[in-house]
């Protein structure tokens, strides 16, 4: 009976053909390494965020008078398993960005942004940027001291344009306009909370959903990159390929289970970082907490911003890093792919990776002059990575030609 129902559906949808085409006939390199799993882990975390977010929306009240209590009383104490969904959502936000960063560094390491995958990278960058905005808007919603003051600092950052060396008044007007537009006025109040809520629960998740779909489509269209850095010839090297299912799906499924075990370890037993103590104090516009810093995923950019003595150049520097990341496929025009086969690129990748990590950790520390000097040094190293890419590419073109055009 069940089989007849399935056959009836299949006759009308051709679902079996679609499954065969997309899961079995679709071939991927056999030598995919462990970091290739980060993509699917990000997807799983996205689903977790959507589901837990839908549950939290049912009880959250985006009004100044009720926001804090709806999170800390209604959700945490009144609703059955409300605490669990809040823990999942808070940990999920951090895990999502952690996985996205690991996914991005994997992409950079294996040069997965190069032809024919430039669009995959660029859409991925837009996903990353949208994700940062989603995290930022969600951070305000609990209406605690960190939520409030973290958002005040963030929305004031564009105002640093007023520190411009030339055309001060024009830059100041632009900065102030952006800042007021973000806050919905000169103060963070109900208007801002409502806007941030709307963006966080509706617009940004929908944009993310669309972007993730496009990203997946592009990954399928261009094929998964090969860690060895060359495109496998499907006709002449079929032994190097394997069907997506079950070869990759079961491998990623097993890793995903381990990932979920780790995720739920944090959800049940270690939430102190994801629900910081300062945020259990209701937002008070008249009381600035002693240590305000953005969440860890923004600390690298924050350290770049605060270590440069001029606010204007700090603002330009961290935005430039974001733009350079977007333009990575065009900065790196070498004919070679993958850090495995590019020693110079490998060294600069290490410089970039460790500088980013150190900048993030420096961002957690008190803003001392030594911290600022170290911040500037590692900011220089981050820029050195981007600036080195065209030089390395130029050198590698020479080697490529010397080898007679063989990569």
């Amino acid at each position, binding site marked *: 009976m069940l089989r007849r129902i399935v056959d009836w559906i299949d006759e009308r949808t051709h679902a079996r053909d679609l499954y065969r085409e997309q899961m079995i006939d679709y071939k991927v390199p*056999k030598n995919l390494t462990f970091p290739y799993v980060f993509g699917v882990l990000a997807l799983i975390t996205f689903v977790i965020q959507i589901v837990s977010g839908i549950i939290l929306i049912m009880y959250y009240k985006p009004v100044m*008078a*009720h926001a*804090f*209590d709806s999170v*800390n*009383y209604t959700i945490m*104490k*009144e609703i059955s398993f409300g*605490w669990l969904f809040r823990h999942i959502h808070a940990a999920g936000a*951090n895990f999502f960005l*952690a996985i996205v960063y*690991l996914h991005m560094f994997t992409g950079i390491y294996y040069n997965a942004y190069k032809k024919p995958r430039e669009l995959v990278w660029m859409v991925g960058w837009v996903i990353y940027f949208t994700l940062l905005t989603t995290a930022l808007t969600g951070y305000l919603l609990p209406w605690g*001291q960190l939520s409030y003051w973290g958002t005040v600092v963030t929305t004031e950052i564009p105002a640093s344009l007023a520190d411009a060396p030339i055309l001060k008044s024009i830059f100041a007007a632009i900065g102030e306009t952006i800042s007021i537009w973000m806050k919905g006025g000169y103060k963070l109040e109900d208007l801002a909370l409502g806007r941030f809520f709307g963006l966080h629960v509706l617009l940004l998740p929908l944009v993310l959903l669309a972007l993730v779909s496009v990203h997946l489509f592009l990954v399928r269209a261009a094929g998964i990159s090969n860690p060895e850095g060359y495109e496998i010839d499907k006709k002449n090297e079929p032994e190097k390929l*394997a069907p997506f299912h*079950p*070869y990759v799906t*079961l*491998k990623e*499924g*097993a*890793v*995903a*289970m*381990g990932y*979920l*075990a780790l995720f*739920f*370890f*944090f*959800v*049940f*037993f*270690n939430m102190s*970082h*994801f629900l910081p*103590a*300062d*945020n*259990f*104090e*209701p937002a008070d516009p*008249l009381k600035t907490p*002693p*240590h305000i810093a953005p969440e*860890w995923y923004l600390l690298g950019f924050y350290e770049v911003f605060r270590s440069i003595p001029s606010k204007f150049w700090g603002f330009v520097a961290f935005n430039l890093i974001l733009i350079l990341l977007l333009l990575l496929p065009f900065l790196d025009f070498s004919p070679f792919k993958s850090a495995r086969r590019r020693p110079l690129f490998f060294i600069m990748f290490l410089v970039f*990776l*460790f500088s980013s*990590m150190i900048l*993030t*950790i420096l961002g*957690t*520390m*008190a803003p001392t002059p030594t911290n600022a000097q170290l911040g500037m040094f590692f900011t220089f190293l981050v820029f050195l990575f981007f600036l080195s890419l065209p030089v390395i590419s130029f050198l590698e073109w020479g080697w490529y030609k010397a080898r007679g055009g063989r990569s």
Partner: protein
Amino acid sequence: MNVWSAVKTVMFTGATLLFFFVIWIYNPFSPHEEYELPEEAEQIINDPKFAAEGRELFKQNCASCHSLRYDGIYLASVAAKPEWSKVEKTQGKPILEEKDGKLVVRGYFVPRDVYEAVAVQDLESLKATFGKVPPDLSTYYLARGPGYLYQFILDPGRVLPGTSMPKLFMPEYDKEATRKVAKIVAYMRSVSEPPPGEKAKRTLMGMVTIGYFLVMGVLIWIYRKRLLSKMGY
């Protein structure tokens, strides 16, 4: 895997784990304050049976200036208003507790705007006296931790110089003062944390969930290995 691949794997895995350990679990570089908590006080704070006594001490000593709305405690002057019990019942939500196997109403959770509207005069008087409205303490255990609260209640001026909070407990005259403070903190802890039975349930739930995913991961891995060997991979 050759030696160079192994070196790279160890380096990248180690750096990633170390980075997330520092960022998510223990960061020795970030500024943080620590407050001493004597052993006796720690024992009282961690023992749920002192919470009931702490609640009474809170009502006697703290409720003149502070509310603790998540447990149905409001400013004493507000709670004494004739209309307050009606406000609680019409605008608030009952906070239930189990006593002798029955659910009884422990107090009412009244929304902040309703409470502040009824208490506007009382809050303004406190503001005029202390320079600011003393905060509601419902979540302060989570925000400040036991060490800070114990030291602050015992001697507010030493922990926060210039604070308008008076010193209410004098260990030099009252031998029970330190224990009383610890009991108040024990009460604040009981409001912020789930009761012991619920905590045990959550721990069990966590262990079962984690165990389930680990077992599933291993089973999928074994199934994959068998399947791929059958398929000739």
